[in-house]
């Protein structure tokens, strides 16, 4: 038994003999393919397999490839010394030898570029229409639930309030506190120059309650919950749970979407309220240590000069953000198709979309309200 694979070429007059030895298996195939040279034309060629110790389909595939090459060069190829097993496997491999390897053609260059642009546009259009129909469906479902309140899944909604709302409170409080400190700190330096120390109160209270706390809360929730909703619904789609629900006559709106949408619309303003308090407290701490404004002074000034409307505007924005996050999260979830890759793709898209639309909506509201003088 020879335990190294080898091929010797004996060249006598018109006949060339390939003496094959040792194991011809996947392990040795690269080495062998380098040794198997086929420079012959119009010759008689014999493959001697009698000294082969082991073989597998990869070894045989190499033979077939070599033989085909030689035949193309008008050589007469014959084989000797094969065992029965070898013949059987050889037959199977030859039967299944791939026909001329044709790769589906790929277009290149400018046409692909244009094609991709066109594809993106038509797909975006489709997505937009689907989104509108999703929102329409949701509105209809909410209408139905309003008429038949018994269909409202209260328990599911509380589940989502707990998971998307209550469990997010610690991280939101921490970020809000830090934001309050940062705003007050940066403001304090500037205000000190004017000797307008006391205005730190308006600065912190208005900017935080009207804009920053709702925005920040919405962004954190978008990162936490939009992704979770998309992935949950997407995996339910892949495992056919959604189809199962439909066949049993359960409405996905009632069971999956409405509890999530209402869950966020209810929990967001509540979280924003906490975020308001904590970030103002952050401002108070800085005002106290940096500018020497005591907590009592801060609170008094706030009562005198900061209108309640700022807090109210902030709290009104919160459910709108909640709606955006939940609707985008659910919508993208239903776009997930059967592949695991699309879970990652749409989860990413859902978070990015949700954050973008939260900020865009905030900008729109900000402009609108300022225009009408609020």
């Amino acid at each position: 038994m020879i335990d190294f694979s080898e091929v010797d070429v004996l060249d006598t007059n018109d006949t060339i003999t390939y003496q094959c030895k040792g194991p011809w298996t996947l392990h040795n195939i690269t080495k062998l393919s380098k040794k198997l040279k086929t420079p012959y034309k119009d010759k008689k060629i014999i493959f001697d397999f009698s000294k082969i110790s082991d073989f597998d389909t990869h070894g045989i595939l190499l033979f077939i490839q070599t033989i085909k090459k030689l035949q193309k060069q008008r050589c007469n190829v014959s084989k000797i010394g094969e065992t029965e097993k070898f013949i059987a496997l050889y037959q199977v491999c030859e039967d299944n030898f791939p026909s001329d390897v044709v790769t589906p053609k790929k277009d290149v260059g400018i046409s692909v570029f244009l094609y991709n642009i066109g594809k993106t546009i038509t797909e975006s259009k489709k997505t937009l229409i689907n989104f509108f129909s999703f929102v329409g469906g949701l509105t209809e479902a909410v209408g139905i639930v309003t008429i038949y309140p018994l269909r409202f899944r209260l328990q599911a909604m509380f589940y989502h309030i707990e998971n998307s709302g209550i469990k997010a409170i610690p991280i939101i409080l921490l970020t809000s506190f830090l934001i309050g400190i940062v705003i007050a700190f940066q403001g304090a330096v500037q205000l000190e120059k004017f000797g307008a120390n006391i205005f730190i109160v308006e600065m912190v209270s208005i900017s935080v309650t009207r804009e920053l706390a709702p925005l920040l809360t919405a962004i954190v929730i978008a990162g936490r919950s939009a992704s979770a909703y998309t992935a949950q619904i997407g995996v339910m789609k892949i495992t056919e749970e959604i189809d199962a629900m439909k066949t049993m006559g359960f409405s996905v709106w009632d069971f999956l979407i409405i509890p999530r949408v209402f869950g966020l619309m209810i929990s967001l303003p509540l979280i924003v309220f906490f975020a308001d308090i904590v970030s103002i407290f952050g401002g108070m701490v800085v005002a106290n240590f940096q500018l020497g404004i005591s907590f009592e002074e801060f609170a008094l000034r706030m009562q005198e000069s900061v209108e309640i409307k700022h807090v109210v505007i902030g709290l009104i924005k919160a459910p709108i953000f909640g709606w955006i996050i939940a609707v985008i999260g659910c919508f993208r979830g239903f776009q997930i198709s059967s592949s695991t890759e699309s879970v990652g793709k749409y989860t990413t898209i859902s978070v990015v979309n949700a954050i973008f639309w939260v900020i865009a909506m905030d900008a729109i509201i900000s402009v609108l309200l300022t225009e009408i003088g609020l």
Partner: protein
Amino acid sequence: MSVVIKATNIVTQFGKNVVHDDVSFEISQGEIFGLLGGSGSGKTTLLREMILLQKYASGSYNVLGKNIKKISSNEAKELRSQWGVLFQFGALFSSLSVLENVSIPLKEYTNLSKDAIKQAALMKIKMVGLPESAAYLYPSELSGGMKKRAGLARALIRDPKLLFLDEPTSGLDPKSARDFDELIVALRDTLDITVVMVTHDKDTMSSVLDRFIILGDKKVQFMGNIKELRLSDNENLREFTNGK
């Protein structure tokens, strides 16, 4: 014939739930060996233990001459290169086409040229009875039976000595299931592999399996071939042969 897998006194536990209590069996070279039993009898668990996917409480497995409990990571890698596994639903990588799925082991573990890999992969794809045109499809575009065939092609790509199949015919229509059975026998005959399969299928059992064990009540209830089972007078076991 040499023994390929030897399981001795295997005990498996999930928490307090004992799945296998003192299970032993041997699988010889060139055999098609079946793991049978009712739902929850731990057939698939047994298979997963053999392929290093699941831990077990005590006992020992000797797979291709290696005790898999005391195996170094290099030995494990070596062992893994000698077997192929077909999972119940194919477990094809959904982001890759069939051709890429089948050729990925060669791409990772050999330095063959791209064309050689492609040819080898296409040959295996044809060998398991898929048309060459299926090579460029993605798993989501395949039927259940095609997914299994593609999974089998991937399991066979490195010419393993051992092939593990988890319910290869479940979810297939009767004709596809019989075709798949024939394919497995044909592959065993030509490629000289040992096949271990978990199955429920009674036709597979009588036409394909050389020997099998029936698991039940945490133990091996029966070991042998179909003729021996038919002669057995145990009523519970006879269910496996008679349909009901």
